[in-house]
C-alpha cells in the first residue's frame, strides 16, 4: 500500500582520533524518542550536543504510538507540531467493549479551543526521523550513529565514556551526560544503580497490521471479546493504513511461539473476519513492568525516559512521560551552562519528575490490576464493574482500560486558547516558551521588563501587538483578572501569579524558578 515508511540509514561518522580522547560539553546517550527530544531542545537553546546511538536507524514498529496533548504542545514548541497533526491520526474518543457489547465510551477532550487534540497516533519511527532531521538542521547536534557506549565512569566533573565504532574505539569525556538509553539502560546497570519495581504476570502480543478498514479514529478496547475470549484487546488506528492491535495472552503463553506469523495471522483474522485482507508489519511480545530509579540525577549524569522509569503501556505514559522529562530538563541544563543559574536548578528536575514518574506508575499499575486481575476476587470485581457500566453511569468511571497520559498533577502547564493577534487567528501557547524564554502573560496591563523574560499582553479588546482574547477563553483558563500576570518557565510550566504592577513580586517568582 502507498506511502509506507522506509527506514533511513544514517551514516556512522569515524572517531576523530581512533584510540584517542575527545571532550564534549553535553553528551546524550541514546538516540530514541527521548534522547533526540532533549538533544533538539538543548540545541535550540544554543547548547552543543553530541548524541551517541549504537544503531544507525530509527525504531522498529509503532512502539510509543499515542502522543498526548501535552507532548504535542512540547513538539509544537520545538517546531514539529504541524508534522504530528498533518501525518498523525487525531483522536479524542475511546470505546470500551465487554463481551459482544459496548460498555461505554469516553471523550478525552470535550472542550474546544486547543491547537492540539487529546491524542495523535503515529508510529514512533516517524517522530524519531523528524527529530533527527530537526537536530541536524540546528547545526548543534553531532549525531554519532553506531557509536556504542561500552563503559562509563562517573566523575566529579562529568563522565568518561568508552565508545566503540565500526572505525575504532575512543574515549569521550562529557561535562554532562544525559542517559536516554532505554529500559535496559547500559549506563544505569554499569553504574550499579538499582531499578526497582513490579513485574506483572501477564504477556501481551503487539501487532502492527497493514489493512484497509473502516474502523473510526477512536481507541477501541475489548474485555473478553468473542474473538479472543477471556482476554483483552486494544485497537488503534495509525497513518499509512497501519493498525496497532494489542492482544492480552496471559502469563502461560509462550512468547516465542506467539510471535510465529501464522499464529498472529490467525488471531488477527479471528478479530477482523474473513473479508478483510491484511499483512503484518511488526510483531512483538512483552511483559509489563512498573519500576523506577531511586534518583534521576547522579552528579553530572542525569537519567531520562525509560532508563529512569518504566510503566506498563496501557495509558500511553511511557513515551509521553519521557518526552516530558526532556521538556523539564533541557531549559534547566541550558540555563546552568549559560551561567544563568546554579546547579541547584537541576535538582528541580528530580523534584518534579520523580513524583511525575510515581504518578504514571500508580496510574499504570491500577490499569494493569484492572486489565490483568490477580485472583478470582479481582476478576469478579472487574467483571462486575463492566456488567454494571453498560446501564449505570456510576460504574463507568470505575472501568479502567488505561488512564491516559496527563501532565503531572503537581504543576500547571500553560493552557492553550484561541486568540487574535493583529487581525489573525493565533494560539496562546505559541507565545509562551516558543522563543526559549520565560513568558510573563499580563491581562490588560503592561508587564514590567525582566531580563530573560518575554512579555505577552493579553487584551480584552483588539490592540496592536497584543493577544486579543476574543473568546474570553485565555483569561478564563489562565485564571487572570485584569491587571494580573502569570509567569511561565521556558517549559511552559506556571511559575506563579502576581499583580502585573508588582515588579518585585514577579522578579522574585523568576528568581525562585531559577533556584537563585
Amino acid at each position, binding site marked *: 500500500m502507498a506511502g509506507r515508511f522506509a527506514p533511513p540509514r544514517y551514516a556512522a561518522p569515524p572517531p576523530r582520533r581512533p584510540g584517542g580522547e575527545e571532550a564534549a560539553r553535553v553528551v546524550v546517550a541514546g538516540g530514541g524518542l527521548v534522547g533526540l527530544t532533549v538533544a533538539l531542545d538543548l540545541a535550540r537553546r544554543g547548547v552543543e550536543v553530541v548524541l551517541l546511538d549504537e544503531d544507525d536507524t530509527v525504531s522498529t514498529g509503532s512502539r510509543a504510538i499515542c502522543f498526548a496533548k501535552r507532548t504535542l504542545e512540547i513538539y509544537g514548541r520545538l517546531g514539529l507540531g504541524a508534522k504530528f497533526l498533518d501525518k498523525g491520526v487525531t483522536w479524542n474518543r475511546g470505546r470500551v467493549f465487554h463481551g459482544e457489547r459496548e460498555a461505554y465510551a469516553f471523550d478525552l477532550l470535550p472542550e474546544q479551543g486547543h491547537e492540539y487534540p487529546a491524542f495523535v497516533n503515529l508510529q514512533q519511527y516517524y517522530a524519531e526521523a523528524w527529530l533527527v532531521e530537526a537536530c541536524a538542521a540546528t547545526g548543534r547536534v553531532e549525531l554519532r550513529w553506531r557509536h556504542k557506549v561500552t563503559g562509563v565512569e562517573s566523575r566529579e566533573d562529568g563522565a568518561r565514556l568508552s565508545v566503540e565504532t565500526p572505525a575504532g574505539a575512543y574515549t569521550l569525556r562529557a561535562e554532562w551526560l544525559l542517559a536516554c538509553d532505554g529500559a535496559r539502560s547500559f549506563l544505569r546497570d554499569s553504574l550499579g544503580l538499582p531499578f526497582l519495581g513490579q513485574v506483572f504476570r501477564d504477556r501481551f502480543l503487539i501487532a502492527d497490521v497493514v489493512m484497509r478498514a473502516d474502523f473510526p479514529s477512536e481507541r477501541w478496547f475489548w474485555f473478553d471479546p468473542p474473538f479472543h475470549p477471556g482476554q483483552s484487546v486494544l485497537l488503534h488506528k495509525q497513518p499509512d493504513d497501519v493498525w496497532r492491535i494489542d492482544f492480552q495472552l496471559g502469563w502461560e503463553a509462550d512468547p516465542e511461539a506467539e510471535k510465529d506469523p501464522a499464529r498472529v495471522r490467525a488471531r488477527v483474522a479471528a478479530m477482523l473476519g474473513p473479508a478483510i485482507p491484511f499483512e503484518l508489519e511488526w510483531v512483538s511480545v512483552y511483559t509489563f513492568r512498573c519500576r523506577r530509579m531511586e534518583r534521576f540525577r547522579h552528579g553530572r549524569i542525569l537519567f531520562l525516559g525509560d532508563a529512569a522509569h518504566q510503566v506498563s503501556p496501557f495509558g500511553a505514559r511511557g513515551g509521553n512521560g519521557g518526552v516530558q522529562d526532556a521538556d523539564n530538563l533541557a531549559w534547566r541544563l541550558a540555563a546552568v551552562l549559560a551561567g544563568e543559574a546554579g546547579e541547584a536548578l537541576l535538582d528541580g528536575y528530580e523534584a518534579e519528575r520523580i513524583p511525575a514518574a510515581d504518578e504514571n506508575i500508580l496510574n499504570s499499575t491500577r490499569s494493569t490490576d484492572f486489565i490483568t486481575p490477580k485472583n*478470582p*476476587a479481582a476478576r*469478579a*470485581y472487574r*467483571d*462486575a*464493574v463492566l*456488567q*454494571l457500566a453498560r446501564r449505570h453511569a*456510576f*460504574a463507568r468511571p*470505575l472501568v479502567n482500560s488505561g488512564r491516559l497520559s496527563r501532565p503531572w498533577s503537581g504543576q500547571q502547564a500553560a493552557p492553550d486558547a484561541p486568540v487574535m493577534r493583529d487581525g489573525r487567528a493565533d494560539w496562546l501557547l505559541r507565545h509562551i516558551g516558543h522563543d526559549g524564554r520565560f513568558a510573563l502573560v499580563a491581562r490588560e496591563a503592561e508587564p514590567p521588563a525582566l531580563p530573560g523574560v518575554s512579555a505577552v499582553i493579553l487584551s480584552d479588546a483588539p490592540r496592536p501587538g497584543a493577544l486579543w482574547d476574543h473568546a474570553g477563553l485565555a483569561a478564563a483558563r489562565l485564571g487572570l483578572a485584569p491587571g494580573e500576570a502569570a509567569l511561565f518557565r521556558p517549559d511552559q510550566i506556571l511559575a506563579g501569579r502576581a499583580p502585573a504592577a508588582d515588579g518585585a513580586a514577579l522578579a522574585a517568582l523568576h528568581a525562585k524558578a531559577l533556584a537563585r
Partner: protein
Amino acid sequence: MSRLSTEPRLADPDAVYALLMEAHRGLDEAASRMLDARLVLILANHIGDAQVLAEAIALARRAGEEEP
C-alpha cells in the same frame, strides 16, 4: 474520628438477612461471588465516602482474623 456507623441500625434485621439469602438462592459459587461484587460496588457508590469504605473494609478484614 470514625465515620463508619457500627451501631445497630436495622429496624428488622431478620428481614434484611432474608433479603441477602434470597438474593443468593439458586446461584452457584461463581454467580454468588459476582452478585456480591456488584452489590459491594452499588453500595460503595451509594455511600460515596472513601473514608467510610476504608473503615468498613478494615473492620471486615479484622473481624475475619479474630478468633472464632
